[in-house]
């Protein structure tokens, strides 16, 4: 599904990512973990076109997306959520999801301004489908609340609902459990499993080890911009280098 081939990113003299390669299997849940400053978010920003990579290549399926613009990726089936929630604050919860459906719908300025019949039909479809995504994430009761007024945990869910509305093949989640309490984290875990069951590949960057070990069948460990280890949860947990990176060594 997604393949990273020797990704390197330099910021001036600082190498944030150094020759990182790994592959994400179709329909899997893959976790990317590592201490702070390991380069996890940088990795997401490169894959989603927000940063330009210094060298290496990124493939989505067979397509080289290394230099795709961010706005092209939703059309290719790749979306993401953000670590520090990036909702459309002054829009309602429902409208946020409706923006998620921008991808896959096509009414332009003219047909919107003139309310042409095609646009009316599409608008109805967008609204109904968006409500379905809100039900899927159990946010339907909050549909008409401004997104900026949502409690933090619901905001995270809304980010996911909005991303799903874009009908992705693969969704990248940047620390979806950060700031959630344990009950919310459990609900998140079951939601992520439900998303995978619907055929969507999931990649998550996460600090919550329990969550990662629980639901990810493949884990990539980054440390100081380099890939330290890769494998199943049990392999990672027993890897002395990983333990050293997390706990420090003498």
């Amino acid at each position, binding site marked *: 599904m997604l393949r990273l081939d020797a990704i390197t990113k330099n910021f001036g003299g600082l190498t944030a990512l150094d020759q990182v390669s790994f592959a994400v299997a179709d329909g899997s849940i893959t976790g990317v973990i590592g201490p702070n400053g390991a380069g996890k978010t940088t990795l997401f920003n490169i894959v*989603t076109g*927000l940063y330009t990579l210094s060298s290496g290549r990124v493939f989505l399926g067979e397509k080289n997306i290394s230099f795709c*613009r*961010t*706005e*092209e*990726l*939703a*059309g290719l089936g790749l*979306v*993401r959520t*953000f670590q520090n929630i*990036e*909702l*459309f*604050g*002054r*829009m*309602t919860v*429902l*409208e946020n999801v*409706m*923006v*998620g459906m*921008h*991808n*896959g*719908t096509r*009414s*332009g*300025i003219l047909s*919107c*301004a*003139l*309310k042409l019949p095609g*646009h009316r039909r*599409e*608008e109805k479809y*967008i609204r109904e489908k968006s409500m379905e995504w809100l039900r899927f994430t159990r946010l339907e009761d909050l549909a*008409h609340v401004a997104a900026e007024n949502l409690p933090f945990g619901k905001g995270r869910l809304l980010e996911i609902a*909005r*991303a799903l509305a*874009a009908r992705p093949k693969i969704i990248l989640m940047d620390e979806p459990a950060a700031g959630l309490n344990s009950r919310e984290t459990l609900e998140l875990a079951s939601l992520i499993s439900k998303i995978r069951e619907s055929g969507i590949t999931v990649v998550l960057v996460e600090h919550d080890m329990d969550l990662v070990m629980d639901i990810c069948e493949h884990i990539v460990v980054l440390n100081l911009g380099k890939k330290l280890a890769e494998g199943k949860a049990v392999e990672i947990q027993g890897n002395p280098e990983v333990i050293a990176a997390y706990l420090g060594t003498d």
Partner: protein
Amino acid sequence: MTGRKQQMILFMLFAAGILAAPFFLKGSYLLTVMVFVGINTMLAVALNLLLGYAGQISLGHAAFFGMGAYISGIITSRFPVDPFGVMLLAAVLAGALAFVIGFPILKLKGHYLAMATLGFGIIMYIIFNETVAYTGGPSGLPGIPSLRIGVLVFDNDLRNYYLVWMFTLVVMLLAINLVQSRIGRALRAIHDSEVAARVMGVNARILKVQIFSLSAVISAVAGSLYAHVMTFIAPASFGFNFSVELLTMIVVGGLGSIYGSFLGAAILTTLPEFLRVFQDWDIIVYGLMLILMTMFMPGGLISGMEAGLRHVMAKIFKGDGGHAQA
């Protein structure tokens, strides 16, 4: 879809009020003022689409207004051509210019965008002022013919009122439709988080340029109407001061509100009659209004009125209070 129905009823009430107003204002000086309220409402709606919805500032919008006025004024005062055709030409040229300069300019954000559009406005103002052979320079361009459809000549306040407001109501209706649509949501999304909007597949770069261009088209049409209504134009009407006045209109009326654009235009167009005592200091009054509004009423006057109106509408229709906004 209660929200949508409410919106349509609200617009029809508004349009009916506008169309009926001359019966109460007949022969009054207010009728003349209302002609300019109509023109300014078009301009305020145009700027609001750009700033209130897409969140992109322009301090040079008076330039597009001037472009429409001068293209119509220069051509129709010299050649016996169809003025509506020239109006269309002015709209297309302003839209094209906005499209071309929009690509580099709209890459900028915040203060930098404000400076770039300010610069554009000043350049255009200098052109209006210095190309004396065409524009008449600082002393102005007289002898612009009134618009006519067949034997109907728009040469008095009442006729101009209906001429201008037909355009204004159409622009308002199209704008209301637009902001409630897929494109309107995308614009507001760009405003709140451009990066998230792009991740969702919104081509922010193109959409910003398109809306800038649309805004220029509406402004140019307003300018063309202004030239024919006034029959005389001078550069002073299209300078930096007027760009700031437009900005004040939408901040006072309500950023991100079409009716707010009207409200702001109505207040700021009527106000100078009362501000005469300040003479050339009016720009300071506008500045003060901008500061006070952003400090104490960031939603503009319309936000308070809308809340009240929604409350009443919700009671009448027993809906959810109308979540769609226009």
